């Protein structure tokens, strides 16, 4: 964790900010596992999830993870993500559970016909609530960070959800020090966010420092894309609906965040190494959520989604 410290020298007794964040996250991970009966970790395959799982491995270093990983598969994830997920979980011996909202699939809910907002509600929020309910989980780890979005900035590390998974921003429990309140009634649950205090830069620095594996889509490569409303959308499979006259062309792009491919914009980039990615991120003028089409639907859309049970 830290280079061996000599207690004689006071100067050695300080942790860098990444080591402090790491220690804090490990504390949260262990606290949840110690106080809840059936925890689960939401695994979205993205870079934040990679860091969260890495921290979990550190927290329970001698044994297996004392909880399963849960992936909500909307069926619209990038192929490269699913490949990465399966290989990563197999190699580490993780207990991976995958859940899809079957009703949504039967009804043919997709991002093209139903719009980002409805699609997200059915295939992500409802799917998540189904999976949590079916698994009987009383605590779920999520990789959300407070710097991502305005309403997230107010969310607790232990975020209380009622029996319908809903968040009530006006009625949150006070949270002081690192003393967390784990008391809930049957049916209620806690979403726990070990990465709350990490920023995007911290995540990338840590991935670099610890050589954490991430999905190759984060690195620039030639990929087939079409341009829509100023956003580059990757044509990941044959389900992509092309507008008349639209023709995919190969471009050197990468992704700053990963989600469902028709909803996640790519950025032109030639960054093929972590230092290059970090450099690009530092020099960019736009926040990472800009690439996500779902947040722009309405003012405060994240808050609305979270009230409904979204992560």
């Amino acid at each position, binding site marked *: *964790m830290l280079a061996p410290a000599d207690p004689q020298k006071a100067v050695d007794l300080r*942790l860098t900010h990444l080591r402090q964040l*790491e220690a804090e996250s*490990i*504390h949260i991970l262990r606290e949840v596992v110690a106080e809840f009966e059936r925890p689960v970790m939401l695994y979205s395959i993205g870079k934040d999830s990679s860091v969260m799982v890495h921290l979990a491995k550190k927290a329970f270093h001698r044994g297996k993870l004392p909880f399963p990983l849960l992936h909500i598969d909307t069926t619209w994830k990038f192929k490269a993500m699913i490949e990465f997920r399966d290989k990563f979980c197999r190699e580490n011996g993780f207990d991976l559970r995958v859940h899809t909202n079957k009703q949504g699939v039967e009804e043919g809910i997709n991002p093209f016909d139903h719009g980002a907002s409805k699609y997200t509600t059915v295939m992500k929020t409802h799917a998540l609530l189904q999976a949590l309910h079916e698994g009987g989980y009383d605590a779920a780890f999520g990789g959300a960070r407070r*710097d991502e979005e305005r*309403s997230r900035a107010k969310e607790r590390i232990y975020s209380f959800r009622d029996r319908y998974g809903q968040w009530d921003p006006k009625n949150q429990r006070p949270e002081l020090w690192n003393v967390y309140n784990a*008391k809930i*009634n049957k049916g209620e649950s806690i979403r726990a966010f070990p990465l709350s205090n990490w920023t995007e830069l911290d995540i990338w620095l840590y991935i670099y420092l610890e050589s954490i594996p991430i999905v190759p889509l984060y690195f620039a490569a030639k990929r087939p894309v079409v341009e829509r409303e100023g956003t580059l959308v990757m044509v990941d499979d044959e389900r992509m609906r092309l507008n008349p006259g639209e023709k995919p062309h190969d471009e050197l792009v990468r992704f700053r965040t990963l989600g469902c491919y028709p909803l996640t914009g790519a950025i032109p980039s030639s960054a093929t190494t972590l230092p290059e990615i970090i450099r690009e991120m530092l*020099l960019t003028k736009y926040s990472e959520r800009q690439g996500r089409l779902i947040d722009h639907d309405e003012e405060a859309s994240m808050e609305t989604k979270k009230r409904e049970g979204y992560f």
Partner: protein
Amino acid sequence: MQETELIRKDILAYLEQHQQKELLRFVTVGSVDDGKSTLIGRLLHDTHGVYEDQLKAVKRASTRAGMEIDFSLFTDGLKAEREQGITIDVAYRYFSTAKRKFIIADTPGHVQYTRNMATGASTANVAIILIDARLGVLQQSRRHAYIGSLLGIPHLTVCINKMDLEGYSEAVFNKIKAHFSEFVGQLGFKAVTFIPVSALAGDNVVHRSTGMPWYTGPTLLEHLESVPAAEDINLSDFRFPVQYVMRPDLDYRGFSGTIASGVVKKNDVISVLPSGKTTRIVAIDTQSGELEAAHAPMSVTLRLAEEIDISRGDMLVHPDNLPASGRRFDAMLVWMSERPLDRQKSYLLKHTTQRVRAEVEQVAFTTNLETLKQEPATRLELNDIGRVTIACHRPLFYDAYRGNRGTGAFILIDSLTNNTVAAGMILSGDAAPETRDSQRPPALERAHSQVSHDERAERLGQKGCTVWLTGLPASGKTAIAYALERRLFDSKRLAMVVDPDDGLSTGVQPDGSSPWQTPELARRATDAGLICVFAYASPLRADRDAIRDTVGNERFVEVHVDTKLAVRKQRAVRGDYGPGHAQPSEEAPSTPDIVVSLDDGDPELAAHAIVQVLVKRGLLPSLYSL
């Protein structure tokens, strides 16, 4: 900017530099009028902590006249906050420079949000208070400084804001500084720093002001980059609350946790609390290998030389440096719930990694947040701060909060609502050595109920009470009693009837007076939260007064069943009014809660009237909920 140059030209050097950064947490307090949000917006903006798209969104939404960017819009996160133009809850913000990463706990400053400031202050190294240069020191400035010191923040930074509106006057700055120094000097901060700024114009926030050449101290950001951070961690007293027992297989047994304070080395001899057993540390494990030593606030796993029974909530310490221990201690409490403190109720107390039941035995005083004077008190309400004595059902191992935030802090949880209702800071046990259990022979405490009347009332939706029906024979007491019981039951309330004539009761007196155990029975049933309806004739006032005294006036409802003689005669089945019988008489109640009768023959009407009285007396919630 040099930083941008470095990123462009030598990203590896930049990464190297940023891996060495320190972390500093600070809390900012104040309302929009103080310019607090503007100050934070300015810090984020000038350190490039804001992206272009966020800036655009904020520019679009900026509605305040004459302002290009409303910086406060960066910080107010919730819909309701933006609609109402106020900050409701603590928000966390992040930015970093080459030297440090900063976490800002941004808290609203209104008096009713004391709990938010306490929350934000609990983890902060620095408190930033804003004073409007035009207004000088206000009561709220004092209040914020007081709460900051109560939560043990070591460094106070006072930004005297809106200096541009006072002509950047050195005299104005010095006057406010002198005035406020006098007050904060008594609060026990390690250091207090004053900085003249204009958040709106950007003077002395990130960039040095050209309007105040007389000020030679650091800008706010320079100050935040250099204020000691790591030195505030207690590294002298080793405290390791066991968080999790790691036992993946039979060969490995480690104790995981976060070092709350101090330093631990391999081969150290340690004591396990509460067992007091002593052993040696054979390894300090992390995923990346063993360490020779570890210190606060690292998360590690310790392996011990001997197999000792240790579980979550136990504490590992050095045998020559023990924490205080005991079931009772004094603490400062910040009350955070709408429901006031209930001293009869037992709460869950969470301290380090353990949870125990605890009561607040005594409130010594509350601090008046207007005058900051101590006032005698018996209770605590939302946003009150007071000194209390806590009694736990098991001993805790603790230190005074002043010297050790990790082992001196606790929260109280309401076991009915599961809400966090208070934050506690343990005071030095030395102040009241006679109350320290460790120095007292253990005394056996009588077991007593840990459920308070209020808790019961909340669960049942009713307050326990005794409804005493008194009236001459055959006036219809039992008929009314059972009608009342049915009516309450149908409204999901719990009632019971004590009917001396049900053929099961023993000890009924021929004159209708109640047996001697009745007051005790009434009290117990009432304590249990029931609405107990008694149907004794009880012609003697003294009998009824005995019941009233035992149950308590506020839980005693007296009903006089005053039915006409003609009806009574008609109803009488036992011959009370027959020939050869003395005419029954009674000492009628002089001020009953209600008088009812069976003159119209319908006990339901009487029952309904009694229910209305129960609602009026506050024993039942409301008619609508029935």
